């Protein structure tokens, strides 16, 4: 079989030769009905019968992985797709650096690797659950289609992780795979593993912010797992990254289009001061200070996903060659970091300051800093939209210490500028920095569905280009198919 192309002869499309791997095929086929039950129970609510213009990967070759067609979501061909194998690939960091990349799980790292795969896997279905009600308030068919594309690909990412569990981790892996379908986002008894994945995604602005900030954490994690010395994990993550890019696109352009629409409406109404919130809201668009507050919330929740500032787990993952740094092979150093230091922001003697830490235990922070830089560039592109529209306002990422639940800053109150304030002061100013219930109610009031092809809700601008070069009035979702 050509490794580039996808084998559709089994129930599960794949490019990993499942037909000759009967045991794994059987295990996956056993898992499949439970997955479909989960999708039907927890996937997009109310649109399972609609025809959605989705892209499906039919090959991992660049020309073949974006085939567009109308599909009913439950019929989407979820499959197991790994980037092509490089037989010369080596372990590129840590104590095993230079050894050939592992095609099987090294016994001593089995537990660690399984944990990495399970944590990554748990986030994938979680976001589908969080977003399941959004279809009903989509601001356009274009946006609805993008939401569903994100959802089916998160579903495929779950498949990707489950394949690794079933193939390489035996009975434990099968149990973990079942548990991935058992936990539910926000469930009191069986919640998802990471905090941000138990938060509600109540409206489309939250969805766009989530895909920009929280899915970007996913991108960073996938990037570092794509460096793994365990080759099947690396290849899986490399292919997932191409899909993850679409999620980044939905978030960045979604927020960008909201900003653009707000600025256009302000200009048309002659409103110069972005802080005239009531006047701006009266136009039926989301005011810029509220956009800043939403950004503060989602950015800070996403920072928590990177874990503690100093982490021996992170050091062990790296030393063992299991999880690298962001774009590890493009960094010029010894890729062992044994004696290196890295500066980490900590809370010391009542002050927030940079402290030298061993680079190995500070790896979470290095990844988080790369994440912050990536976010900041996106925020600058948003600022360009505001600037171009002629509105005098700038969005800014809040300080790392702001609104944190994990790590050094979880017990202090810091403003977005990084000024520490008392509990009493915090209670007084909190509403200036984070969305209030009223803000949420206002945003909710705008969430009226628009389902006519080519039309968009008043609070969001049309995109500059269509998906797959489609014209503006293309019917991306045939709702009542």
């Amino acid at each position, binding site marked *: 079989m050509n490794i580039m192309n996808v084998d559709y002869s089994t129930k599960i499309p794949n490019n990993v030769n499942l037909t000759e791997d009967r045991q794994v095929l059987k295990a996956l086929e056993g898992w499949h009905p439970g997955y479909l039950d989960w999708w039907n129970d927890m996937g997009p609510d109310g649109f399972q019968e609609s025809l959605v213009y989705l892209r499906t990967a039919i090959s991992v070759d660049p020309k073949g992985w974006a085939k567009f067609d109308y599909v009913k979501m439950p019929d989407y061909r979820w499959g197991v797709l790994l980037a092509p194998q490089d037989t010369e690939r080596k372990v590129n960091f840590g104590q095993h650096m230079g050894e050939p990349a592992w095609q099987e799980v090294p016994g001593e790292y089995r537990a660690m690797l399984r944990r990495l795969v399970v944590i990554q896997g748990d986030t994938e279905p979680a976001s589908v659950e969080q977003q399941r009600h959004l279809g009903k308030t989509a601001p356009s068919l274009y946006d609805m289609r993008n939401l569903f594309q994100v959802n089916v690909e998160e579903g495929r990412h779950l498949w990707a992780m489950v394949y690794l569990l079933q193939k390489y981790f035996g009975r434990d892996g099968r149990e973990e795979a079942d548990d991935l379908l058992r936990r539910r986002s926000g469930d009191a008894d069986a919640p998802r593993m990471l905090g941000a994945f138990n938060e509600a995604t109540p409206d489309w602005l939250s969805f766009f912010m989530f895909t920009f900030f929280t899915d970007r954490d996913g991108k960073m994690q996938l990037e570092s797992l794509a460096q793994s010395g365990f080759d099947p994990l690396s290849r899986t993550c490399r292919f997932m990254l*191409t899909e993850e890019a679409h999620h*980044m696109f939905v978030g960045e352009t979604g927020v960008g289009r909201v900003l653009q629409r707000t600025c256009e409406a302000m200009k048309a109404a002659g409103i110069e001061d972005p802080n005239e919130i009531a006047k701006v809201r009266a136009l039926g668009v989301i005011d810029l200070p509220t956009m800043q507050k939403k950004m503060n919330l989602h950015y800070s929740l996403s920072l928590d996903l990177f874990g503690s500032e100093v982490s021996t787990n992170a050091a062990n993952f790296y030393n063992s060659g299991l999880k690298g740094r962001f774009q590890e092979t493009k960094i010029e150093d010894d890729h062992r970091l044994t004696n290196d230091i890295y500066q980490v922001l900590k809370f010391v003697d009542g002050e927030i300051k940079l402290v030298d830490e061993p680079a190995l235990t500070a790896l979470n922070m290095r990844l988080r800093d790369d994440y912050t830089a990536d976010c900041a560039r996106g925020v600058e592109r948003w600022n360009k939209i505001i600037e171009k529209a002629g509105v005098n306002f700038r969005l800014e990422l809040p300080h790392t210490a702001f609104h944190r639940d994990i790590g050094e800053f979880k017990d202090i109150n810091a403003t977005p500028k990084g000024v520490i304030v008392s509990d009493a002061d915090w209670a007084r100013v909190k509403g200036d920095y984070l969305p209030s219930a009223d803000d949420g109610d206002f945003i909710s009031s705008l969430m009226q569905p628009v389902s006519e092809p080519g039309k968009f809700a008043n609070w969001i601008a049309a995109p*500059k280009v269509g998906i797959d*070069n489609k014209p503006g009035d293309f019917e991306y979702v045939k709702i009542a198919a």
Partner: protein
Amino acid sequence: MNAPLKKQHLIDPEICIRCNTCEETCPIDAITHDDNNYVVNAEICNYCMDCISPCPTGAIDNWRVVAKPYSLEDQFSWSDLPAQEEVESSDSGVAVEALEDEIGALLEEARKGLGGKAVAPHSASKPTVNLYNRGKSAKATVTGNFRLTHTDADSDVRHIILDFGDQPFPVLEGQSIGIVAPGVDSEGKPHLVRLYSVASSRDGERPNTNNLALTVKREPQGVCSNYLCDLPRGAKVDVTGPFGATFLHPNDPAANIIMICTGTGSAPFRAFTERRRRAMPDAAGRLLLFFGARRPEELPYFGPLQKVPEKLLGKHFCYSRVPGQPRVYVQDRIRGEAAQIATLLGNANTHVYICGLKGMETGVDEAFADVCRGASTDWAALKAAMRDSGRYHVETY
């Protein structure tokens, strides 16, 4: 003589989200980035197009015809793409119709009758160009090959259906594909590429199939046409393209489309008609076809065309060799419909497309001039204005 023009691949910084997918995908490291932008190095890019389909935004699919390529530094500094510069170009203008020079030259020749630069209709969809080339062709399978002309007709014109299986091959009505007959010529060189207009609409010969149809006339000494006309079902064909970025179907339902053709020049108009029928059957715009052939028996799609309702398509067949009848050419029928044509030409939603043998150009042009004169309009000025606004199109060979 200026330096040869180059088609430069650029990324739109306003749409790009800097996801790194293109840089990761590029097999020859032609794509790089700084803190501001992702950019393509014109000295390295070999137009393999591997980066096009994985891009989540469409930012990657941008092209400019340049005398001097933009440097990496230029591109790093941009916050949006520069407009296409007016370059010292031949008549065919500056839309990127193909990336391969041999195809570009063929299309330039086909557009000569325009007398100016070709501009796509404003409402046309964005075409994909040159996704496949000689080095990396798409493999199509012949799933149908039918004779269109009557058995006793002199000419053998065939309807050939090519299926692309799992390979993406996005075409728009009006685009062409390239075919190179296998083997070598008498000098041992590979055969020249031949272009064929797609005769089916963008969603396939049947809706939602990944195939397309061609209308191919067997030429007595034609290497490629004989190769194609003789292909049995199941045969595999190397296909390049799609090509063409201006002779495209307008998506605006209000567009009136006057289509003038002879012989296999009907291929794009079959595609246009089918597009209208499927996507906008109640469109306000009028479709009008002037189709010239020697006899009904030699007119491709004669039978199927009879079944197309007049409401969808106004048909004017013009026969020049029916025994006992006067010879009628397309220009004669255009004159015969002068009142209707003059009204349509006076409408800013009207588009004119001419496709067929070069020999028809002069006659058609004179007929339009006569019609316009009758309506006190200057055809030369109107033609130029229509061309510049993407409403006048010529593809002749």
